[in-house]
């Protein structure tokens, strides 16, 4: 894309948007060069900060007119590079669309703009005894629009599900600039379900209706320290086998505990090979009943110390170490990679043993933090970026962990998304036919591939092509506008 096109586009944008909503100064543009994943960087061609759906739609239509790709960004906290800008494109930032438009308590729903933070919704209804259930660790900053794009999870999705289970309606701007309303009430294809988690490749959500959940009557948080990861794992299996679905089961290994200790002084039990956090919530009578069972199970599986949070403050203290674990690793290692893979819960011991072997083989340390209840691993691969070759070795270990996940029937991402970072692993998890079929959905929404191109899919086919049947060279490929693999 030539600079001249972007220059003309910037002028057109300035006519549409409020003053100060179009950024073209390179120093400013560069601050948008990456999201929460700094590994991939690209300075956006133009940044726009629209305030309404109409402005978003107008920007998208203009992008279409000039054949310029666009990428949506919320708070920029994603960990898969889903909001990585295009140097030849426009970055549409929703951080100024942050009004809570409606709170409808009788129907337990709220309508919000995409830039509203996840936690802000809960804060708006907390006094009435409600909350918004999905709780990614970055909930105080991540935007609900980003949550929709990535189908964000969180520690409590074990019991309550993911973003997609809590979205009741969307207003979206489609890749051709139409504003379309989607409702969970609508008959027809579940476009809502297809859109959530599509990582910005099917359009931009401009208004979001979320379900509000009743805050549970009782919450009990228990921290159990085990000598080893195996002990903790056995406890998790036994809890599930006992027919208990806790709100959350989180595990941290010794190295992760060390980091959290260094960062926030969480004072977890000393000498723990693994720390398990189990949170139970629901009706008081049920929670009490389940708590007795969980405590017994932890003791039987070898917990050497069990702590129970008796107050909100103590609960927060238990969670503090876990919630800050990612960033905390910065205290014990100059650099690190946050991985996000999933395995069937029963495969956890084997996969963790596999990760141990990788550590030895490559001389790279891995701290393990995971949502043990649903087998979602977050290995933190530590390395020194100043040491020659260590970065490459860490990247290899990180990739091989994903291989382990796939081998055991799991997934390459449980909640961070594929983004730009993991698109190359998609062919390991899916066949060419699988990916071609997904591409049909993409082509239905965005035949010109202008909406967040280059994300999720490794080798995006052009929509004119029939999957499986290649018919000569596509005119776009011929003209150099697209690459064919």
């Amino acid at each position, binding site marked *: 894309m030539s600079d001249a096109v972007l220059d003309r586009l910037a002028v057109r944008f300035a006519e549409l948007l409020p003053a100060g909503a179009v950024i073209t100064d390179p*120093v400013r543009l560069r601050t948008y060069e990456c999201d929460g994943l700094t590994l991939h960087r690209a300075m956006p061609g133009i940044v726009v900060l629209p305030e309404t759906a109409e402005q978003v739609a107008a920007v998208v239509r203009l992008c279409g007119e000039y054949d310029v790709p666009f990428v949506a960004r919320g708070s920029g906290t994603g960990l898969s590079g889903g909001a990585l800008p295009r140097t030849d494109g426009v970055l549409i930032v929703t951080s100024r669309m942050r009004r809570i438009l409606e709170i409808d308590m009788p129907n337990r729903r709220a309508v919000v703009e995409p830039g509203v933070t996840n936690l802000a919704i809960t804060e708006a209804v907390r006094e009435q005894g409600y909350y918004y259930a999905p709780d990614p660790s970055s909930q105080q900053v991540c935007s609900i629009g980003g949550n929709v794009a990535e189908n964000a999870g969180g520690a409590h999705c074990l019991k309550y599900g993911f973003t997609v289970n809590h979205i009741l309606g969307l207003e979206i701007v489609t890749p051709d600039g139409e504003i379309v309303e989607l409702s969970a009430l609508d008959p027809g294809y579940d476009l809502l379900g297809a859109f959530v988690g599509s990582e910005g490749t099917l359009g931009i959500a401009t208004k979001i209706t979320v379900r509000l959940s009743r805050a549970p009557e009782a919450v009990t948080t228990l921290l159990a320290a085990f000598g080893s990861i195996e002990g903790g794992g056995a406890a998790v299996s036994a809890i599930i086998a006992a027919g208990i679905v806790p709100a959350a089961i989180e595990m941290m290994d010794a190295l992760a505990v060390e980091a959290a200790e260094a960062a926030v002084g969480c004072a977890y039990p000393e000498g723990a090979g693994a720390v398990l956090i189990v949170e139970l919530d629901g009706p008081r009578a049920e929670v009490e009943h389940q708590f007795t069972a969980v405590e017994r199970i932890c003791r039987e599986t070898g917990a050497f110390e069990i702590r129970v949070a008796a107050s909100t403050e103590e609960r927060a203290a238990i969670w503090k170490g876990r919630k800050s674990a990612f960033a905390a690793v910065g205290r014990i290692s100059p650099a690190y990679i946050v991985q996000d893979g999933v395995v069937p819960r029963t495969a956890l011991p084997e996969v963790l043993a596999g990760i141990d072997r990788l550590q030895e083989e490559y001389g790279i340390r891995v701290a393990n933090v995971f949502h043990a209840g649903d087998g979602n691993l977050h290995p933190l691969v530590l390395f020194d970026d100043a040491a020659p070759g260590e970065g490459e070795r860490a990247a290899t270990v990180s990739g091989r962990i994903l291989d382990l996940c796939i081998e055991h029937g799991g997934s390459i991402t449980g909640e961070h998304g594929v983004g730009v970072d993991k698109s190359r692993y998609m062919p390991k998890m899916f066949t060419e036919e699988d990916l071609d079929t997904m591409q049909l959905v993409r082509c239905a929404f965005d035949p010109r591939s202008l909406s967040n191109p280059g994300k999720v899919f490794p080798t995006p086919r052009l929509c004119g092509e029939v999957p499986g049947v290649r018919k000569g060279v596509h005119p776009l490929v011929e003209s150099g506008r697209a690459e064919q693999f």
Partner: protein
Amino acid sequence: MDPELIKDCVHCGFCLPTCPTYVLWGEEMDSPRGRIHLMAQHVEGTPVTPEMAGHFDACLGCMACVTACPSGVRYDRLIEQTRAVVEREHVRAPGERAIRELVFTLFPYRRRLRALRLPMRLATRLRPFLERVHPSLGAMAELVPPPARPVRLPPRVHAVGRRRATVGMLVGCVQSQFFPQVNAATARVLALEGCDVVIPPRQGCCGALSLHSGRDARRFATRTIETFERAGVEAVVVNVAGCGSSMKEYAEVLKDEPGGWAERAAALRVRDLAEYLVELGPVAPRHPLPVIVAYHDACHLAHAQGVRSQPRELLRAIPGLELREIAESAVCCGSAGTYNLFQPGPARDLGDRKARHVLATRADVLVSANPGCSMQIAAAMRRSGEGGMRVAHTAEVLDASLRGLGARALGGR
């Protein structure tokens, strides 16, 4: 700008929602994460452009991001280093320069401020005119509280009952001129809790204003250290959040200063009033004070000094007092030292936002431990037209309870 400190930032964005300018504008460049990115650009060779300087200047230095950061990024250090670079490398517009000179030659000097009190009263009436000359002058005029009766404090106030400690007290430049009654209350509360209070009459500015603006604060620091060393006290109690935070930084400020200054600074036990009273433990009986209080976290107390629980604990311990939390308590009110003078626009927006949240608590009294915040929020509440709220310092509330004065003794609007 220390590249090592910059590297600590992992770009997680946890700082965004607590940053006042991000809250206002929703732009990456006006968030801590974005500013650190700009610092990195400078370190990599990009000169300080006017745009870049503008984003640094827009930072209030509230340090809410330091509290929010899970990676322990020392944004406080980074922004101070950055401001020094901006002062050195960036040429400001003439009008802006003049206002900055005016503030830096006035505020750190008690006598100059005192001389200004009468003209300032006039200024209230002249505000529309001043506003036209320069928005900063208008902001200054709007902030001025109603004239307070001067209070002369003795050099030493003796402990009531058994003496438990001897402490020094910093009176503060703005505090002593505009809120002398707060200093009187502080001295009384300390005395009632069993402290001999030493108030060196010739104490000067602690240097906070300069330090937080990227100017040289070393002279102010060494003078203050000397003053309190001579006073022979166990601790220096400070009732101004901004002063307390800068005094706690003396060792860092003077680390390259010959003459063992860093060690002498470290030896000075500087404590915020609330922090000190909780450490000391209460002895004086609390009388009932039936009043609803909204407590405002001054940034330089909550974020810079980490003092959040202590003032609440002291307030809650007063019989009959109901404490209410203010929404977005971590977000700055826009006062931020000299910020409301240099950046009157955003400061005003933040003040309005804070005033809305404060008024929403429907409390009787707003309690804050920083004169800048008190002036800023009071002015914003006056502007809102929704009726004001009495404003008091933690010390005044404690004083009223300890002396059994009743709720009506508290603060003005």
